[in-house]
């Protein structure tokens, strides 16, 4: 594995974590503003597109998906998913300090666990170089084959 992370790439990861969390939050605010939608009148969901926070939420989620795909093009899935889960922590902290919501001890425990997990994964390499692994396997195979030939000749 090799570390290919640059400042710009860390910013893409920040865009992934904030895009998903803030996009969902904006959609939630907008849909609360609209009220419940009946399953028999699903076409009324189109009216939600007139609500500014729904539009902002959709734009943020499009930005999230583009950033997520970009991140997956130069980093492993097992690196991107834990690294970007910090967005859940951001939302919980916003809820506590901006919206003054109650954050239970279980949620603080969740914030601590996610922070530890993100801290661990971002300290390591971001990408598995398969060509290097293959060449390492070949190098490991060649001496083994050579020793087999030696044993047979003896």
């Amino acid at each position: 594995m090799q570390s290919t992370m640059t400042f710009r790439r860390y910013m893409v990861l920040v865009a992934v974590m904030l895009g998903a969390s803030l996009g969902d939050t904006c959609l939630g605010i907008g849909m609360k503003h609209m009220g419940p939608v009946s399953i028999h009148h699903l076409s009324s969901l189109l009216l939600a597109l007139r609500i500014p926070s729904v539009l902002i939420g959709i734009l943020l989620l499009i930005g999230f998906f583009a950033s997520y795909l970009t991140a997956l093009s130069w980093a492993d899935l097992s690196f991107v998913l834990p690294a970007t889960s910090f967005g859940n922590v951001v939302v919980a902290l916003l809820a506590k300090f901006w919206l003054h919501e109650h954050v239970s001890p279980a949620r603080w425990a969740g914030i601590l666990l996610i922070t530890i997990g993100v801290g661990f994964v971002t300290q390591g390499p971001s990408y598995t170089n398969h060509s290097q692994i293959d060449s390492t396997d070949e190098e490991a195979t060649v001496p083994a084959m050579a020793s087999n030939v030696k044993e047979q000749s003896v």
Partner: protein
Amino acid sequence: MSHTVGPSVWLMIAAIVVMATAGDVLLASAMRQIGDFDDIRAHAGLGGAVAAVLKNVRFLFGVLCMAVSFFSLLFALSWADVSLVAPASAALTFITNAFAAKWILKENVDRRRWFAAVCVGAGVFFLAR
């Protein structure tokens, strides 16, 4: 909403987790096949990069799996409490993604990544309850 968690609810959670993991793996595989998105954008422009993604079959199947996972979540939410379905599916998806990354995508999932996946999965479970 039901207050007892029967096997059918766990089956629905399993369906959400499997489809979400399949979607993530297919998207990751598609982007690995396409190559560094920044390089493609530098050579072919944003339109060329978007076209390269949209033409990729794995990407299209990945989006399909994500959509099925989303509708499975909506379906499950009509049967069981959101406080169970949302955290359980989100937390389990982190763990199954780590397994899929190791065994399907052949990523080097070392102890650090296993530990991170378990920590984040548990953290999301606590946070979403």
